[in-house]
């Protein structure tokens, strides 16, 4: 019998495996949320830096 099928048949093993996977899902969801929020900040920070660059160039050239 395969390892997967053994887990699926035994109650204890199945619930332990599910608990382990649920924990991993939570960790993954948290990592994804951090990544999502960080990717929202990047264009914002980029825009501020771009505006600073424009002001810098303006003072340098004018």
């Amino acid at each position: 019998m395969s390892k997967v099928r053994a887990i699926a048949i035994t109650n204890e093993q199945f619930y332990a495996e599910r608990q382990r996977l649920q924990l991993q899902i939570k960790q993954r969801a948290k990592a994804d949320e951090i990544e999502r929020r960080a990717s929202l900040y990047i264009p914002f920070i980029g825009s501020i830096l771009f505006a600073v660059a424009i002001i810098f160039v303006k003072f340098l050239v004018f």
Partner: protein
Amino acid sequence: MPPKIEVSRSEVLKSVLKKLGIVFVCIVTIAGMLGLMMTGGKTLGIHKPDDKDDQTLLQSYIEWYGIFFSLALSFIIGQGWRKYLRVNSEIDREIDALTLMVRTSEMLGQKYYQITRTLVRIVILYVDTVKSLTVNDKRMDGDTAELMKEIHECIRDIVKEKKVSDSIKNQLLLHYCEAYDARGDRFDLAAQKLPRIAWFILIVVSFTWLWGFVWLEFHTRELNLYISACTLGSVSFLFLMAWQLDDVRKGRFRMDFSSFNIKVIEDHNEKQGV
């Protein structure tokens, strides 16, 4: 509605700081280009063509080259957007097929309780594993591939049963095939990326077009700054979009597994006492 995930600001800040290097390089490049546009290339010691006929020719060049450039960039963004939508619809298709497969297995009755329970539990483990791995999943040699093989073996055992109705067998096989096909398409779409040479060509094409603005004669510096900043800002934004849409495994437009929901399967689980 999915539960709200609590994330501390310091964790987000750490992630932002990791990416700041790329942002800094991009901004320095953009600022450098802006400086060149404002000085007409004098900082590099290049003479600006100030002949009136040359300037008219340059204006026409910017115009027709701009059409070609915008078409190329919009094509890449369009393709990326379509890929992003399709990969998410494949995820939906996969979970729908798995749910229907579990629902169909309910029709087998109490005699086949053991085999139904095993199938449902393997599907639950498959769904949980996919959700825990998301973009790090592997098509052929990963845990989910092993679980898919187990689902196949469960279906095979049911198909072997002579007393099970052929229509149930057909439906189970149909839903299994649908899930397998959607899974394959999901991996295939996620692996599709624009070749590096295409990015290189696009950057060269962008630079060629933007150089036209460096040599363009402006009577007022304010107008020069306004046109240069707007053009560079728009091109940068479109590049950012194209870059984010190119890879559905990371960034803002990555695969969305929120629909990979096992609620229906959980309901079945409780009802059947699995």
